[in-house]
């Protein structure tokens, strides 16, 4: 497999065209199926993640439309209770685990190495593995849906409903194992991002010069590392209760029903910040470019990110305000839940100040930022409302809460994501998306969203609980439900147009060039799309806005090898170069390891022994993965 040892080739030995060519060879991913299965290029894997997540978004959206259709009329007979319960469970689980977190991670996977000036993410093979695992988990969940055995207990699967006594069949086991797939995948990416951001930044990129989007991904990664174990433990305990007779959640044998809720929400609350913080990072990246000046209060923005991350762990009981916990305990969580409005406010005011002093360029990415600000602030304010225990006793588990979380998730995460895709699409593909279609998308999505979800605040206060497959005419909820369902069509049209624009622009978008937005950060200092090695020479950074400080020239470092995959390791705070490091070649082992893991995890839904005999092929693939291949990358 390894090439005969030849003389090492340094980048100083080649001229510019020759170097570009040689680096392409060294870092290339061959075309075709084999290339796709063996690639470890973060850009290919990141794009793959984004596409997959967007497909899951579309599927989840169809489920939402089905629910809105069923609820448009009282006593509608379109969908019965069993299917409806599967649909809302699938909708929530799909959106949270298969779309929202993966797409944010994906943007990090693609953009972070480029923004910090390195050639690949840390642990590229783990990156490849994490995608296959994510795909496997998603396929498992959707195949179960197609087979009418999807989980039907809500995306947070409260016991005892999901437990061995009341959760018949394998539905809840499928849910719990889907969690394992997606959480292992997300944890892997989180570890990669932390190490990449800590150790692979361009020389001179001190902590103060790290782009705010990268900070957001760093904080998010720590949230993932500290929060996801909670749901892994929870879902494992659930499977154990169901499969081998443990009693974690069985009050008759010393277990506790509320233990599930504590474990789940200890993860569940940070989860929403895992989704939201990257979105704030995207806003922090888009605004400066489109107001032609750096962010106001950069330090405050970074501290707000960290404060939000820390506070996020102290809120979880606000999901349990009506379970009968002692009032003193609940009060603490009111304080913490209200307090998180403060770092959120810091971010919003810094952005507003930047918009105020800057000169706005009203292109589609900024239009999405505006849509975000209008919508997310509403969601944040209803969040402050439900942080109050007495108020929450009325609206908990009603459509008011459904409205709240869609406002913060769609307004606060999906709008920034859409703006970010319009912003970075030219970098991913070399082509711009359509400004004209984009304006239609923003308008349809903004109007459609607000008309669909605002009425739900009222419905909740008027007594409509969540997760009901139908309601009677006497309740007086029909007109608002009909309004909401009709508006959902407008929202869907907006998304459909968005997907059309994405697909169309791939072929027929205007060519973009390196830096179509005249932006400041390093990802815009290389071609669109970037070459496989990202940068022909590693950039050297002397400020927080590198391309605005030196619009004509970029300072670079040379001396890396061109015949082996090499990148630069720098120190933690000052980003001084300390070592070179090799980056792995394309390899099939991550894919094989993912298959072994998938078999082991799916089999263990049916028998605990699968964890034992399934470990053997997994160990074999891991040995294949780590065993040195004698390639130039193994030299020291």
């Amino acid at each position, binding site marked *: 497999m390894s090439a005969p040892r030849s003389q090492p080739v340094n980048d100083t030995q080649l001229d510019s065209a020759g170097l570009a060519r040689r680096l392409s060879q060294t870092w290339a991913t061959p075309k075709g199926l084999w290339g796709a299965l063996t690639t470890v290029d973060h850009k290919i894997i990141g794009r793959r993640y984004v596409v997959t997540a967007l497909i899951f978004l579309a599927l989840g959206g169809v489920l939402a439309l089905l629910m809105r259709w069923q609820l448009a009329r009282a006593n509608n007979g379109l969908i019965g209770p069993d299917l409806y319960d599967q649909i809302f469970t699938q909708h929530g689980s799909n959106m949270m685990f298969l779309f929202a977190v993966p797409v944010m991670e994906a943007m990090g996977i693609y953009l972070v190495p480029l923004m910090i000036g390195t050639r690949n993410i840390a642990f590229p093979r783990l990156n490849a593995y994490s995608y296959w695992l994510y795909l496997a988990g998603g396929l498992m969940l959707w195949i179960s849906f197609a087979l009418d055995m999807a989980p039907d207990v809500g995306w947070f699967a409260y016991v005892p409903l999901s437990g061995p006594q009341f959760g018949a069949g394998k539905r809840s086991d499928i849910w719990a194992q889907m969690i394992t797939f997606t959480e292992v995948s997300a944890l892997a990416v989180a*570890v990669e991002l932390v*190490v990449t951001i800590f*150790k692979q930044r361009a020389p001179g990129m001190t902590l103060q010069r790290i782009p705010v989007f990268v900070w957001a991904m760093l904080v998010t990664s720590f949230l993932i590392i500290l929060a996801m174990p909670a749901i892994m433990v929870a879902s494992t305990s659930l499977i154990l209760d169901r499969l081998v007779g443990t009693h974690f959640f069985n009050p008759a044998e010393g277990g506790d029903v509320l233990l599930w809720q504590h474990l789940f929400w200890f993860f569940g609350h940070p989860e929403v910040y895992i989704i939201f913080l990257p979105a704030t990072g995207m806003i922090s990246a888009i605004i400066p470019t489109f107001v032609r000046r750096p962010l106001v209060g950069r330090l405050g923005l970074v501290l707000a990110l960290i404060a939000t991350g820390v506070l996020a762990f102290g809120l979880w009981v606000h999901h349990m305000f009506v379970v009968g916990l002692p009032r003193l305990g609940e009060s603490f969580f009111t304080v913490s839940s209200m307090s998180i409005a403060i770092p959120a406010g810091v971010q919003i005011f810094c952005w507003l100040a930047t918009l105020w002093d800057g000169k706005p360029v009203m292109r589609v990415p900024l239009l999405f930022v505006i849509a975000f600000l209008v919508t997310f602030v509403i969601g944040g304010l209803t969040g402050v409302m439900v942080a109050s225990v007495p108020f929450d006793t009325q609206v908990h588990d009603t459509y008011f809460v459904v409205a709240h979380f869609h406002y913060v998730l769609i307004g606060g995460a999906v709008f920034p994501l859409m703006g970010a895709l319009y912003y970075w699409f030219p970098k991913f593909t070399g082509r711009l998306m359509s400004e004209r279609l984009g304006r239609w998308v923003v308008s349809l999505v903004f109007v459609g969203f607000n008309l669909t979800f605002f009425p739900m605040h009222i419905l909740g206060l008027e007594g409509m609980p969540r997760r009901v497959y139908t309601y009677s005419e006497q309740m007086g909820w029909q007109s608002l439900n009909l309004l909401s369902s009709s508006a959902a069509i407008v929202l869907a049209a907006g998304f459909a147009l968005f997907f059309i624009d994405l697909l169309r622009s791939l072929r027929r978008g205007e060519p973009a060039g390196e830096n179509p937005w005249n932006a400041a950060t390093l990802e815009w200092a290389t071609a669109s799309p970037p070459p496989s090695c990202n940068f022909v020479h590693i950039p050297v950074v002397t400020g927080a806005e590198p391309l605005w400080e030196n619009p004509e020239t*970029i300072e670079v470092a040379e001396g890396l090898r061109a015949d082996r995959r090499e990148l630069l390791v720098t120190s933690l705070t000052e980003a001084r*170069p300390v*070592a*070179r490091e090799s980056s792995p070649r394309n390899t099939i082992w991550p894919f094989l390891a993912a298959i072994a893991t998938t078999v082991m995890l799916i089999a263990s839904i049916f028998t605990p022994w699968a964890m034992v005999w399934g470990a053997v092929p997994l160990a074999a693939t891991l040995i294949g993965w780590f065993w040195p291949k004698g390639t130039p990358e*193994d030299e020291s």
Partner: protein
Amino acid sequence: MKERVVMQLDALPMHGRGSDSPTMWGTLAFMLLEGSAFALCIGIYLYLLVLAPQWPIGALPPRWPAGTVMTVLLLASLVPNYLVGRWSRENDLARVRLGMVIMSVLGIAPLIVRVFEFRSLNVWWDTNAYGSILWLLLGLHSMHIATDVADTLVLGVMMFTRHGSNSRRMGDVEDNVLYWNFVVLTWLPIYFCIYWIPRL
């Protein structure tokens, strides 16, 4: 954009060690992750304890001997572990090879003791919630020992092949040493929970 060269990198080592090694940081990140999982399981143990009218629930506390042997064995293994770490930093291949054999043995031995520990628990995982959390804690830690032993064995074998002379392997050994420290350290609070708390 035009490029201007301001820095030379070819004098840098081809591979970083210690805090210059990405895999060391990756190992730390995994320790944080798995440490969180352990902390949560201990949290579950304490939560169920507070709820229960009496603890242990319907069982005698686990018998002393196996757990104590385990603790002594694991703590003792920290010494050769430390030495292997030092030898790997000194790139001393011969001693590292010896050390990996010793650590492999010291990794397999606790697994055998663990079997006796499970049998000393005086309760099954499906007897009640107390039994469930005990088996979960012990099971999780056993899985960690097992995966680390597998890692040690494979790395140990590698040290005896031609790949062993590559200084990258020394970095791998350092990471392996670091992780074993973690495996031993996480045992201590679990040991306290399983064997001491029921007797307090």
